[in-house]
């Protein structure tokens, strides 16, 4: 039996899933209900003792037919749908979609709106990385310690977003040609206060990881993804940068006002779980910087461009942004009707998840969970 093909054959032919075709291995079904598959991932693992010989991710348990639904909705009605894509970073999804429509129709967005967008996008990136870090703590078996800490800060970001949009998870804040509302009174001061607080806490997290011998034992040199491999396997976002590849859509294909702000791409060195975690941490620091600059340089003015009520774009566009998880692309085809002809989402979580079988071969179950935690898939986005 060729490696990699075996499990698939077993699954398709025999749903009882007891046989791996080898006497010394067992087939373990992990998920879709499992404490640390980050939602509804199902993994079929061929185990030799504790060692993972073969692994097949099975996805689709959260498939909602998102791309098809958009074909029956008007362009504006699609924005709240995007909230539910990557449900822990709705702002980024909002942005990816509205940017695609703006690119397609050539809409000029007012500068203030762009600055507000960058502010909320970077806050969203912080919130998302905090969540990823917290759930990695759970995966590594220190239930809820790290998670409760990171959720404390994430909660503050959610409060800020609540003051912006009224919602805490699905914000529906971006609009085609701008944002829904201007920043509420006092938002800037509250955000600056929060950033001061967060900076201290990020240092604490770094200490928590570097000073914690066991945390390092569990993440250092585990799940190594070499730079070349990362590129070939289509890694993106923190996973790619953790392997030392300096690629970030915010620099590569600048959108909004990222090119006017002063910031650097954060990269790791070794490509193991620890460097991916450190990319999260340093990216949070960088995001703090960006938010501060955006708030300082924010010009007055309108927050929404004049856009026709009924949008009938024509043409084809692929527009991409750097979501917290990587390159989030929207391929949009308009056919001069009120609904898109086709909307395809290039999901970073899906691309990163597809690396799992390649780097999790020959590791122990515990490492598999750690690797999965650092790949940070969100199933709303993987399955769409």
């Amino acid at each position, binding site marked *: 039996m060729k490696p990699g093909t075996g499990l698939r054959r077993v699954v398709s032919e025999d749903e009882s899933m007891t046989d791996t075709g080898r006497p010394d291995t067992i087939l*373990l079904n992990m998920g879709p209900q499992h*404490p640390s598959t980050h939602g509804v991932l199902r993994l079929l693992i061929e185990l030799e003792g*504790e060692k993972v010989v073969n692994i097949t991710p099975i996805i689709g348990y959260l498939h909602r037919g998102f791309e098809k639904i958009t074909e029956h909705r008007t362009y504006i009605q699609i924005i709240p749908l995007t909230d539910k894509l990557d449900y822990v970073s709705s702002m980024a999804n909002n942005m990816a979609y509205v940017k695609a429509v703006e690119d397609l129709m050539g809409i000029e967005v007012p500068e203030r709106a762009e600055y507000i967008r960058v502010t909320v996008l970077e806050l969203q990136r912080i919130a998302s990385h905090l969540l990823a870090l917290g759930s990695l703590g759970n995966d590594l*078996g*220190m239930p809820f310690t790290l998670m409760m800490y990171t959720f404390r800060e994430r909660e503050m970001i959610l409060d800020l977003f609540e003051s912006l949009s009224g919602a805490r998870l699905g914000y529906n804040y971006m609009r085609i040609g701008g944002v829904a509302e201007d920043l509420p009174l006092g938002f800037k001061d509250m955000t600056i206060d929060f950033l001061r607080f967060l900076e201290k806490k990020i240092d604490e997290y770094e200490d928590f990881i570097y000073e914690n011998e*066991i945390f390092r034992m*569990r993440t250092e040199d585990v799940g190594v993804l070499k730079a070349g491999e990362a590129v070939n396997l289509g890694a993106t976002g923190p996973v790619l940068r953790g392997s030392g590849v300096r690629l970030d859509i915010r620099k590569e294909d600048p959108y909004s006002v990222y090119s006017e702000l002063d910031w650097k791409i954060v990269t790791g060195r070794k490509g193991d779980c620890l460097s991916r975690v450190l990319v999260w941490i340093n990216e949070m620091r960088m995001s703090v910087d960006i938010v501060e600059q955006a708030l300082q340089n924010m010009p007055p003015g309108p927050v929404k461009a004049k856009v026709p009520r009924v949008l009938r774009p024509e043409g084809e566009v692929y527009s991409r942004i750097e979501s917290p998880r990587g390159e989030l692309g929207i391929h949009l085809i308009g056919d001069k009707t009120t609904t898109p002809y086709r909307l395809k989402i290039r999901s970073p979580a899906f691309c990163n998840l597809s690396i799992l079988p390649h780097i999790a071969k020959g590791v122990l179950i*515990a490492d598999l969970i750690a690797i999965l935690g650092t790949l940070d898939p969100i199933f709303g986005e993987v399955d769409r």
Partner: protein
Amino acid sequence: MRSTGEVSEVELMELLNPELYIKLLTNPFIRGLAGALIVAAIISLAVLLLIWAERKFVARLQHRYGPNRAGKFGILQTLADGVKLFLKEDIVPESVDRIVYTLAPILCFSIALLPFVAIPLEKNLIVANVNAGILFILAVASLGVIPVIMAGWGANNKYNLLGGMRAAALMISYEIPAGLAIIGVLIISGSLNLVDIVEGQKDGWYIFPQFLGFITFLTVAFMESSRPPFDLPEAESEIVQGWTTEYGSVKFALLMFGEYTHAVLASILISILYLGGWLGPFAPSGFWLVLKTLIVMLFLMWMRAAVARIRIDQMLNIGWKVLVPLALLNIGIAGVIRFV
């Protein structure tokens, strides 16, 4: 005696005769039964309170409140959880090996309570003052892994199996350092009797000459009670609930209870072997033992909130490559201290 309920005067006098009671009290069977019941009651109560204390303490470390609904400060939470578990339907999955599956929780519970009969709370407060007390405790405590493997195998679930196998691997690598660590104490005290060991610490606790042994035994305590960072057999994020995955209701309560008493036992042993047991000024002696045990327990709880889980190969490395040499070195130190 007639069964009609009529009691003649002679028989009444016989019942009031104090010698009867002395005879009853000196009867080894009755004494043993009474002692066992007392131990079971005390340990059950202590575990109920300790689980609450742990949840509360860990919650505070983790920036949350912990139980605060049932009773004052949520102190009845464990009781409520226990009642809930006992009232639940006892589901037995279809594919299990019924005998092994049912026997495991019972064995786990009873074996967990057994070592406590040989634990002295005070010089004279002991159910069974076994001459080789420490040997008895170690022997019985190491039986504790058998129900774990039974639960892992009998439930016919792969997660249970993995948990049971992990427990077996864990057991092999902690039993040897545990025994070796204790040998140091035995060399210095010159006795296997726990009472003698504590009385021998009048001039100084064994933690000072036996620091390496203390460290080894403390690490072993984590492994023995399979608490974080060595909670591999029930690693929730990896193998769901490990060896207890297929268990519910009363059976699960018994398994969890049995597991928890291991931690209590380990803490008591540490305070007896290394921290001078009930020795201490002012307060009654039992108080000191309880206090020391609680402090060790607190350390176990603290670690649960502070560190990640160790991987199985790393755990085996620690057992064989770190703890065994450390314990051997410790024996050498003990020998030098004893004979110089």
